């Protein structure tokens, strides 16, 4: 579940899912909802992403920043993602994702504006009451 937040200067969203992988997948979808009015839901291009991080919060920020980079700088809009998260020996956590994406088309997707970065402000990734939850603020 995604709830877009009202932040005075920036934008954000709250996520709630049953699995950790779904949380990261929802984060991708929420990001696209912020960036586009009509985000693509499929794409013919494929990309693989491998990220590591010492904790879940850093992994989520890195994931979002990677998607922001792919969208804004590489012109690849990640329309779908297949995410796997596992513990890694030396780095803590590793995320592997297979992305299917579309070439960036500003007008077609109803571009809403640039995102500078995902922030760590008030960020917690927690498992409570049987659900994974996170709250993310983006700097726009």
């Amino acid at each position, binding site marked *: 579940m995604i709830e*877009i937040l*009202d*932040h*005075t*200067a*920036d*934008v954000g969203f709250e996520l709630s899912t049953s699995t950790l992988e779904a949380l990261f997948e929802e984060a991708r979808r929420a990001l696209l909802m912020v960036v586009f*009015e009509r985000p693509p839901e499929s794409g013919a291009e494929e990309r693989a992403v491998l990220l590591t991080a*010492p904790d879940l*919060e*850093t992994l989520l*920020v*890195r994931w979002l*920043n990677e998607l922001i*980079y792919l969208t*804004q*700088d590489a012109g690849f809009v990640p329309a779908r993602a297949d995410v796997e998260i596992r513990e890694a020996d030396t780095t803590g956590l590793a995320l592997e994702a297979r992305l299917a994406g579309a070439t*960036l088309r*500003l007008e077609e997707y*109803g*571009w*809403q*504006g*640039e995102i*500078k*970065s995902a*922030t*760590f*402000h*008030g*960020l917690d990734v927690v498992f409570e009451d049987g659900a994974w939850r996170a709250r993310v*603020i983006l*700097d*726009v």
Partner: protein
Amino acid sequence: MNFERLSQYKYRIPREGEMEVDAAFYASEKILDDLAAEDYASLKQLQNVATLPGIVEPALTMPDIHWGYGFPIGGVAAFDPREGGVVSPGGVGFDVNCGVRLLTSRIERAELERRKDRLADALYEAVPSGMGRGRPDFHMSNEELELVVVEGPAPLVERGFGEAEDLDHIESGGKFEGAEPGAISARAYERGLPQLGTLGSGNHFLEVQYVDEIYDEEAAGAFGLVPGTVTVLIHSGSRGLGHQVCTDYVERFLKAAPRYDIKLVDKQLAAAPIESPEGQEYLEAMSAAANFAFANRQLISHFTREAFVSAGLDGEEHRLRLLYDLAHNNAKFEEHAGKEVLVHRKGATQAFGPGEEDLPEEYRFVGQPVLVPGDMGRYSFVLAGTEGAMRETFGSSAHGAGRKMSRRRAKKAAKGRNLVREMENKGILVRAAGRATVDEEMSEAYKDAADVIEATHGAGIGRRVARLRPLIVVKG
């Protein structure tokens, strides 16, 4: 929220909990109402800043305070390197050295009105805005970019993108010393290279304006502001290069903070001691990003001058002169009350008072030009730095109007309206890459800049000099 009124526009938040020092903020009655309406979220962020090690009393916010991430927007915090003072990449922000520059001219408003449509189109064509890349006719190699991050706009001016005199009218001469190309990641270069000379989106803009009112003849005279003449205000920063620098170093500092026993009440405040290897390396990277931002605004100014020429406003009588380029997201070593401190300004500007040596010679007797953009439908202001700011705010002042409405709320409020047409009816031409930005940036989404100026001028941390009104707005 526990605070006490010190004077008409100044308030103190006494030290409590984890705070190392008192905090202080500036507000008019109206601004105070806005703070209460958000349940003092930005003042709580100010209290968080006051918990950082080595902070010099007080932690401050300017009258354009609003809710940020980590630091509040409008935040000013000085740290003493000899007392374990820290540097915080989040306290500088993602858009390192975001700032504004103001160009003046002798062009009369009436003359511009005759060419307004043509100029609006020419500007939109000449200055890349929105997402995407810079002008296809501007190229820069990786080696040239490395030179720019060390030297700022000077190499661009040498290549003909501007006038030598421009460099004298940029804060710090357009160059932060100590920039180190090796302190920036490959991804930061990759993102920055195609974006030099681009406005971006969000609240960034290019505005053609006219001088509508003068409040201080002497300072206006020194700044070259003449009633009824045309000015250009440019707001942009360090683009993807600066964003990446902040992203990279916030993560590194999160790891480093526990090693230095720094307790973080908010992860976005990740910090390391100024004197630590991490702190030093961030300052090298931040300086490089700051120099990129100065160069970005230099290139945009050059494109602006080209657009004026192509709209028929050519010749010496139409020359655009750089009044000043002023940053509002950075950290700088400065001397205050006899000691050297690192002043973070997150959505706040330097506002040095008369007599300060760092200022351009012709402005030194009136104080630093302080450029305060308002919203796109009303007005912007020029102030001068004051002795009061030197005494109370580490030589700092307000940087803008400050948002009061979230982007989402603004979009809802804009539904069913044609804001571009509304602006046109008020005599303001808008050229924008997309409707979303115009809706988000609607006038009503911002506090009235006049309220911010009332508190700033009233508190003596900036002296009102002139008001500028928009004629053309270019948005991303």
